[in-house]
C-alpha cells in the first residue's frame, strides 16, 4: 500500500477541473495506455494568461492527484509564470509523493509544456531526442533534463522520475552513462559522492589500495611508518601497521581517524577498519 499524503488522497477523491475545455487553444497530450498513465491537458489562453485548465487522466491515484493539482496551480497564471513550474512544484503542492511515483508529477509538467508549445505552434525539443528506453519511449533529452532538474544521482532515481529503465531494463547501462555524462557536464560534482550500488570484493580491494597509496601512505612514511592491507571481508577492512607505526601508541587513532575516514569518504560509507591482531 502506498502512503499518500492527505492532499494527494483529497485531490484523488475529489479531482478538480476534470474534462476538456471547449475551444481549447493549448492542448498537451502525454503518456500512453501501454505506459500505464496518460494525461490530456486542455487550456484556454487569453492575453498570455491561462484562463481555463482541464484534464483527463488515465492512471493511478497519484497521477490523478498530480493532474488535479496542476490545473489548480496554473489557472489564472500568466504563461511566462506557468512555464517555470517544475515537477517538484507539483509534488510540493501535494505535500510530497512516494519516490516511486515521482514520474506522475513529471507527467504533469510535460503535459503543461506540451500544451504551451501547442499554443505557440512550437515543437518540443524533447520530442526530437533519441529514444533510450524503448519500453516507455523515453528520450535522452528527457532523461538528461530530469537528471539536471531533480538532481538525480542513480539509475533507480531516473526510473522513479522518468520511468526509463523500469521495463526490460536493457537500457540501464545507457542510463548510467547518461547520468555520468550529465553530472560531469554540470556543476563540479565531487567524484566521491558517486557511490556505486554494490562493489565486488576485488573492486573494493583495488579502490582501498588506491586510497591508501594516494592519501594515507605518504603521511605515514614521513614518520617512518607504513600500512599494509591484509584482508577485506564484507565491510571489514583488516590492516596492519608497519615500521614506526607498529609501536606507536596512537596507531588506533590513526586507523580510525585517518584511514577509516578516508576510506569511508572515498570507497564505501559502511567500511569498518580494524587492525590485525
Amino acid at each position: 500500500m502506498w502512503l499518500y499524503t492527505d492532499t494527494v488522497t483529497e485531490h484523488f477523491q475529489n479531482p478538480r477541473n476534470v474534462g476538456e475545455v471547449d475551444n481549447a487553444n493549448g492542448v498537451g497530450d502525454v503518456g500512453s495506455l501501454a505506459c500505464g498513465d496518460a494525461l490530456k491537458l486542455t487550456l484556454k489562453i487569453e492575453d498570455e494568461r491561462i484562463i481555463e485548465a482541464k484534464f483527463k487522466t488515465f492512471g493511478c491515484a497519484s497521477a490523478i492527484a498530480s493532474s488535479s493539482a496542476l490545473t489548480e496551480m496554473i489557472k489564472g497564471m500568466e504563461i511566462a509564470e506557468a512555464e517555470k513550474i517544475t515537477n517538484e512544484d507539483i509534488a510540493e503542492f501535494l505535500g510530497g509523493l512516494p519516490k516511486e511515483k515521482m514520474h506522475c508529477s513529471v507527467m504533469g509538467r510535460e503535459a503543461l509544456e506540451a500544451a504551451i508549445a501547442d499554443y505557440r505552434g512550437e515543437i518540443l525539443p524533447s520530442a526530437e531526442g533519441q529514444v533510450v528506453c524503448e519500453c516507455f519511449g523515453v528520450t535522452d533529452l528527457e532523461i538528461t533534463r530530469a537528471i539536471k532538474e531533480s538532481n538525480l544521482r542513480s539509475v533507480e532515481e531516473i526510473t522513479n522520475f522518468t520511468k526509463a529503465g523500469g521495463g526490460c531494463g536493457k537500457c540501464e547501462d545507457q542510463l548510467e552513462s547518461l547520468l555520468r555524462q550529465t553530472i560531469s557536464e554540470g556543476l563540479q560534482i565531487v567524484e566521491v559522492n558517486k557511490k556505486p550500488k554494490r562493489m565486488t570484493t576485488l573492486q573494493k580491494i583495488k579502490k582501498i589500495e588506491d586510497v591508501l597509496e594516494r592519501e594515507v601512505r605518504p603521511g605515514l612514511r614521513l614518520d617512518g611508518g607504513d600500512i599494509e592491507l591484509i584482508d577485506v571481508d564484507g565491510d571489514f577492512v583488516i590492516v596492519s601497521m608497519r615500521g614506526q607505526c607498529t609501536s606507536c601508541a596512537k596507531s588506533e587513532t590513526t586507523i580510525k581517524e585517518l584511514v577509516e575516514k578516508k576510506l569511508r569518504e572515498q570507497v564505501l560509507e559502511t567500511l569498518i577498519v580494524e587492525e590485525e591482531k
Partner: protein
Amino acid sequence: MAADKVVYLDNNATTMVAPEVYEAMAPYFTELYGNPSSMHTFGGQVGVAVDRARQQVGSLLGCDSAELVFTSCGTESDSTAILSALRANPDKRHVVTTRVEHPAVKNLCENLGSMTGTKYRVTMLKVSEDGLVDFDEYVNALSEDTAIVSIMWANNETGVVFPVPEMARAAKDRGVLFHTDAVQAVGKIPINLKELDIDYLSMSGHKLHAPKGVGILYVRRGTAYAPFMTGGHQEHGRRAGTENVASIIGLGKACELAGEKMEEENGRVKELRDKLEHGLMTSIPRSILNGNKEQRLPNTTNISFEYVEGEAILLHMNRFKICASSGSACTSGSLEPSHVLRAMGVPFTAAHGSIRFSLSVYNTEEEIDFVLDKMPAIIAELREMSPFWPGQ
C-alpha cells in the same frame, strides 16, 4: 450493510484465521508451551499434538503424514523442493516451468545460476489467451536432461487450474521429478496424492484460514530431499529449527475444516463468485474476463475494466472498505503490469485495469450485492476522467 464492515474479497492474498483454528491454537501460546522434542510429558504432549496436526494435513492431501514436512511458508517449500531435485540430479541441467508461476517459483527459476553456481537451461512454457498450457508442448519440453518440472496447480491471479495430475503422469513416464505449487489449490480442489504421480507439493497455511508463517512440503516417500536449513533433528532431520507449534496446530485444524468445507467452496462460494462475475460483466460495459472460465478455482474471478487503471479502482473501492487486488503496474511498485496477464497476451488497455476478486466461505450474498451496487459508479467515474474512454 454496516458502514464500517470490511468486505474482504482478497482471499488469494491471505485469509482470515478461522475462529475454530484460533481456538485450537490458543492453548499452545499459554499453558502448553513445552518443546515437542523434550523427554518430559509436558513437552512430549505437544509433540503428540504436532503429529496429530500432521495427520490432519495428510487426510486433506490424501498422503501418509510421514511424507509431510512443516515449513515456514509456501516459498520455503517451493525452494526446498526445487533445489532438492537439482541437488539429487547433478548431471541434469534443465528445468521446466511456466511463465505464469508465482514469484516464489518464477524468480527462483530465473536465478538458478546464481543460487546454485551451476548453469541451468529453463523452459518457461507459454500460455494461451485463456491462461492454459499446450499439453503437447509441455510433453515435448521434457527430456533426459530435465531435472525437475515445477508447475503451479492453480494460478493465484486468474484462478486458472492446470491439469496437474496428467502433467505429473507425463513427467513420471519420462523419469522426471514433478513439483507443484498448490498454495491456491489446496482446500478448493480435491487432492489425493496417493493416486497421483506428484513428487513434491507445496502449500501454505494462511491461504486456507490458518495463520501466516506456516507451510507444508509434501515429499513422496523415497524422493530426493535436501534440507533447506541445517541444525537440529526436528521434522525427522528434514527441517531444522524448533517447531512453530501453535501455527502447526492451527494448520492441522484448518486442513480439517477445509476438508469439511470443500463442498461449500465448490457450491455456495462458487455461486457467489459467479453472481459477482456475471453482475459486474453485465452492469459494466467493456469488461473482460481474464482466464479460462471453466478450468478455474471456484472462488476467483479476474476482470479487466478497460481504459481505467487498477490502483485508482482499488482506492475507490477502499472508500467502501471493499478489498481486492489488481494486476496493474502501479500497485506493485514496478512499472510493468502483471506478468501473468502479459503472458496471456492481455492488451495494455485491459491489463492495467484488471481487478482480482477472491472469495472465501466467510463471504455472504449481502456483501456481493453491496459490491455489485458500488462498482459500476466507481468505474464510470474513472472512465469519465480517462482520455482513452471512447464512450459506451
